[in-house]
């Protein structure tokens, strides 16, 4: 209370500063207690919002997915649905009779995600190693933000690029009949996953510390040996987490795969033929939710796909958290 505004003259004098009672009155005590409690409650609520949002999303999706299984009315009908979902590749939700085999959609997600990871991991990891250990500091200061900028490009812009440039290029130069296929989507997804992988694994590599590298050099290891045998193994938890985060970026991506993958609900045959068109779970939801009749079996089946997707990402996320936790606690040195 002794604080004064700059223009104010010296008021009651220094003695006034100390004439306040040392003990709070009961009223002040109560006000202080109440405000501290409400303050905590408000902060708790703010912090709980995101947790609550996750729980609500889970509840809502489960609630909308359940009728897909229960509409038959009997347990055997529900089990039949379950068997159809995971046992058939025939996705004909609007046909009469409708078929809801989601195996080809699961396979589609797996194909593009896996192929994207195969491209993005070596690319991202090598970039991360260059940035953390090889490039001079100045280059790194510029290169890392540029790589991270890739993550800022909206995915619809990537999709447009895939349809208008990559697809005709594939048709013209690779002789493919259709340029929108698993390969196209995977390449674009890989480019999108690279910034995540670079950013997280570069952090992990840097976190191993200078002493580790100098110790290795002191033992006579070359720079290459130090990198491959010491630094990368030491940062492996962070690197795995980076790969999983990149994978999640790829599996959850919707717009790009919807535009670039062609959306044929099939499992490529032969199985390794990435130049065939596939359809992912995310693309199915995005493409069909718009005009499907609210409350129909088709509508509920899309929520079932959403639930499967949510469970997948939940598992991946948990694994990542665990690995990142190990990286932090162990300082990257396990």
């Amino acid at each position, binding site marked *: 209370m002794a604080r004064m505004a700059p223009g104010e003259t010296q008021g009651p004098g220094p003695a006034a500063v100390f004439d306040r009672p040392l003990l709070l009155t009961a009223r002040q005590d109560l006000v202080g207690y109440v405000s501290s409690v409400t303050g905590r409650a408000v902060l708790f609520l703010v912090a709980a919002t995101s947790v609550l949002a996750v729980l609500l999303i889970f509840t809502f999706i489960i609630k909308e997915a359940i009728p897909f299984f229960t509409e038959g009315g009997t347990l055997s009908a529900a089990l039949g649905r379950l068997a159809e979902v995971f046992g058939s*590749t*025939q*996705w*004909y*939700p*609007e*046909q*009469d009779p409708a078929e809801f085999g989601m195996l*080809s959609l699961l396979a589609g997600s797996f194909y593009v995600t896996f192929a994207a990871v195969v491209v993005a991991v070596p690319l991202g990891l090598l970039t991360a190693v260059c940035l953390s250990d090889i490039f001079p500091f100045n280059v790194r200061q510029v290169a890392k933000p540029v790589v991270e900028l890739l993550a800022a490009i909206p995915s619809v812009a990537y999709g447009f690029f895939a*349809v*208008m440039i990559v*697809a*005709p290029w594939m*048709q013209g130069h690779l002789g493919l*009949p*259709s*340029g*929108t296929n698993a390969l196209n989507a995977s390449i674009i997804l890989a480019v999108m996953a690279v910034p995540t992988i670079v950013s997280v694994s570069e952090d992990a590599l840097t976190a191993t510390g200078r002493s580790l590298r100098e110790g290795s050099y002191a033992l006579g290891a070359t720079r290459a040996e130090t990198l491959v045998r010491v630094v990368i193994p030491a940062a492996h938890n962070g690197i795995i987490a980076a790969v999983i985060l990149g994978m999640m970026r790829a599996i959850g991506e919707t717009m790009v795969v*919807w*535009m670039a993958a*062609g*959306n*044929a*609900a*099939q499992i490529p045959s032969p199985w390794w033929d990435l130049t*065939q*068109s596939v*359809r992912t779970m995310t693309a199915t939801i*995005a*493409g*069909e939710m*718009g*005009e*499907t*009749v*609210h409350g*129909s079996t*088709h509508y509920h089946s899309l929520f079932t796909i959403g639930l499967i997707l949510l469970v997948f990402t939940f598992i991946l996320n948990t694994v990542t958290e665990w690995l990142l936790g190990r990286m932090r606690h162990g300082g990257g040195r396990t």
Partner: protein
Amino acid sequence: MNARRVSILMTGLLAGLAACAAAGALFAAAKETLTVQGSTTVGPIADAFAEAFMRKNPDLAITVTKTGSGDGAKALVDGQCDVAAMSRFMKDKEYKAAIEKGFLPVAHVVAMDGVCVVVHPSNPVSELTTEQIKAVYMGKITNWKDLGGADQKIVPISRDTSSGTYEVMNELVMGGDKMDPGVEYVTSNPDKHKRVSTTPAAIGYVGLGFVDEKVKALKVNGIVPNRRTIASGEYPIARPLFLWTRNFPELGSTIHRFVTFHLSEEGQEIVEAKGFVPVTNY
């Protein structure tokens, strides 16, 4: 003193405003209502009709619900809506239910929904039969040379299965048979147009409004798709879009004006703007 006078004035004004608002609410409650329910294909036309109607008659409230043709028929029979928007004719079962309720459902054709089969402009094929198109989408014909084109694998492209355009194709060409799993899907007519115009081996289908020089519309069973052949019913891949009413509406009533709105110039423009073919020709 002055300030006080201003405040009195303000209070008076506010009270006046509140009174106006209350009166407005009363009038709003007394508004005439019209409910339309049904197809997601006809829905956009009904929506635009409703908008144009409400602009002209501010004391009319029209609600349009789009949940599918079947729901529209059911709601009309149950008396839950005044007009059912449907992209198909009523089924025998629905007709029977309506007659049991004591009325005759009457169909008003508001537009024709024609679907053009399109290929890349460089494709030498310019005519197909509906059987050939069906065979292509079922995966039975997979090479353009079987259709008189170059030796090239056919890339069939379809609209998403919930769209009205797919429905037309499924109904009039596929006859309910399943498309091959290898058929690619896009979500909109512009996307389809983009894919076909950049893929030499592609075949797709779009509404008449999306045909331009970048894609080539094929003759089907020897008939060129255009407004005249679609409106006259000669072109095979076209269907009428209906608004249904309980009995024929009383002449001059709101329902009557609504289901005949497509006959006006403004109504025709709306039908065209939504990518359908009007049955009138101004």
